[in-house]
């Protein structure tokens, strides 16, 4: 083979290889695309839609377009001009006939309590008697609320197209009549407490899982493979058992005529049944049970990879066992502890079913409020805003988890 021949064939071959590789990459992308398109439709777009709903302010512009237009140049000082009053009366008549006034009334009632009544009763009276004087006189005559600046700033602040109202409300803030961000009135300022409660329960469950999971993972990692595989069944079987089954079982065990109370009363330890469920204790018990495998599995996979030689070396150098454990073994388990804790915490703060079934009213986490505003009161804006805050917290933690887990080249034991 001469050098010239090799050099001559070299270029096209390289190009051919490159072309083949490009075709291969194209095919590979083509295989991923169906799933991406599917997830776009069933997951990404719905989530984006939810986030949009947390800022979308469509009700008032759609129901009261003339008023919104009339208020566009109102500076928010004093009362708006006669045209705005006339526009409001016209909008009310149209909306009442179309049956859409209640939608706007509901939106405005979030800003000023009692707005709903004002709006609906004014609209009703407006139909009964034709206006003799100016629109302004008529409206204020029908309800003195129209003579207050607050009623008009409410419409202006809700005139879209986007609002910060829901997102601010989700963190207990609101805007006053002048548009400044202030603390929400105490009867509406409940969400910060709910978020604190959610994170408190998350931390508590994570700590419990770590305390309970660490010895188990250590035991499993240091037993001979055969025996540890056998004992692993005790971790995996509950893991695979339906969440509803486990929750149901905890109620059977902990309720006032349940197994624990029954046995304790039979033994004469207590006279009255203890309250073990439908309170915080029940939530911790059931959630720790559900999430414990998510702690044990990543811990186990890390501990399994720690060579016993380090501990032997420490011992041979004269370290007492406790020192060797704290200074040599424990630091090597940190990646597992980090991954396990993050995973449990991420899953815990999103929990809905377990607290809903075994918690009391004071133990409901943020998810249950999201569900409540979606299905019960149909305040979709607030549901979306609370969802957006929870989603953001989760994603930030998930990114940290991803960095941690990728660093270790594992999937972190997620159902694995």
């Amino acid at each position, binding site marked *: 083979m001469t050098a010239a021949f090799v050099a001559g064939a070299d270029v096209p071959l390289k190009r051919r290889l490159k072309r083949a590789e490009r075709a291969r990459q194209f095919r590979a992308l083509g295989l*991923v695309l169906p799933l991406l398109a599917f997830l776009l439709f069933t997951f990404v777009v719905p989530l984006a839609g939810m986030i949009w709903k947390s800022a979308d302010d469509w009700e008032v512009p759609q129901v009261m377009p003339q008023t919104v237009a009339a208020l566009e140049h109102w500076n928010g000082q004093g009362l708006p001009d006669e045209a705005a009053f006339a526009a409001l009366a016209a909008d009310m008549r149209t909306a009442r006939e179309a049956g859409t006034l209640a939608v706007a009334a509901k939106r405005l009632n979030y800003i000023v309590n009692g707005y709903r009544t004002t709006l609906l009763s004014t609209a009703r009276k407006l139909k009964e008697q034709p206006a003799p004087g100016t629109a302004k006189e008529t409206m204020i005559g029908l309800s003195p609320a129209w003579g207050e600046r607050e009623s008009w700033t409410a419409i202006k602040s809700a005139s879209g197209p986007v609002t910060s109202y829901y997102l601010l409300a989700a963190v207990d803030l609101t805007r006053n009549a002048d548009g400044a961000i202030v603390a929400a009135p105490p009867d509406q300022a409940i969400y910060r407490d709910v978020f604190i409660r959610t994170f408190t329960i998350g931390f508590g469950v994570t700590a419990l899982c770590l305390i309970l999971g660490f010895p188990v993972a250590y035991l499993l990692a240091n037993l001979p493979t055969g025996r540890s595989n056998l004992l692993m069944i005790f971790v*995996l079987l509950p893991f695979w*058992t339906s969440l509803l089954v486990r929750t*149901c079982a905890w109620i059977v*065990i902990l309720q006032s005529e349940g197994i624990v109370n029954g046995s304790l009363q039979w033994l004469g330890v207590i006279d009255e049944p203890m309250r073990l469920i439908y309170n915080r204790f029940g939530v911790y018990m059931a959630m720790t049970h559900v999430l414990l495998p998510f702690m044990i599995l990543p811990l186990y996979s890390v501990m399994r990879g720690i060579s016993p030689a380090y501990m032997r070396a420490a011992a041979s150098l004269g370290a007492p066992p406790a020192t060797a454990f704290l200074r040599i073994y424990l630091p090597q388990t940190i990646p597992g502890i980090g991954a396990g804790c993050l995973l449990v915490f991420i899953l815990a703060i*999103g929990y809905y*079913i377990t607290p809903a079934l075994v918690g009391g009213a004071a133990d409901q986490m943020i998810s249950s409020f999201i569900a409540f505003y979606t299905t019960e009161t149909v305040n979709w804006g607030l549901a979306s805003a609370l969802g957006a805050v929870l989603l953001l917290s989760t994603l930030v933690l998930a990114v940290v988890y991803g960095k941690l887990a990728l660093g270790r080249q594992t999937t972190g034991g997620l159902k694995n």
Partner: protein
Amino acid sequence: MSANHSPQTASQRFAWMATVVASTLVFIFLMAPILAIVPLSFSSSTYLTYPLPGLSLRWYEDFLGSARWMNALKNSVIIGVASSMLSMALGTLASLGLAQWKSKWKPLVLAIVLSPMVVPVVITAVGVYFFFAPLGLTGNYLGLILVHTALATPFVVITVSATLQSFDMTLAKAAASLGAPPLLTFRKVILPLILPGLASGALFAFATSFDEVVTVLFLAGPEQRTLPREMFSGIRENISPTITAVAVVLTVISVCMLSTLEILRRRNERLKGNAE
């Protein structure tokens, strides 16, 4: 690296004993719900307490004879099978693609593909509910199958990708060098070897759908209520012994799935051992 633990000093022995005792207590904690509920389902009494006054199968008869529970079982199976098949198809294709695809966008695509696993289900459920309701995808099977597929696919991708990672690509190259077209190589060489991995993926997908209740709460009409959904209302109202029977049936199904998975895992390991 599973060196036998051989404690030497007294304090080491004590620490090991403490670990064993603590772990035993945790194992009891982990198994307690299952151990508590199984005997109760065979009780002849309507009260969920021990000691059992007598044994009977009446709650299982109740379950099997109830149109409501049977309809729920049917719904769970329909939605579970359909969504696991769909997520298998989408997830396996994507895993095959992801194994070969090299791009700076890959981490982002991977993050999107795996995100349904991380995002709290209630958020997914609310988002999908807002999006599906105007499209007429609530109150029917299709909407539920679609969202369960989205939730199950990450598990398929993880399982199948792990299998592909351990797959010896030289085998595919050997087949290609002997003149086999790509599709034939896939069917005759790759598929038989990754089949256990695919089966585990399908099982994960089915289990995800079979146990899912949050999206069902939002999307299902009265006709599409699944087993977990019926259990949810049952637990909310008043736990009847029939629920314990359903719970035991579900647990038996979990045991079957877990055993199948373990068999598949062993088989996969054996195949890997042969390939190496």
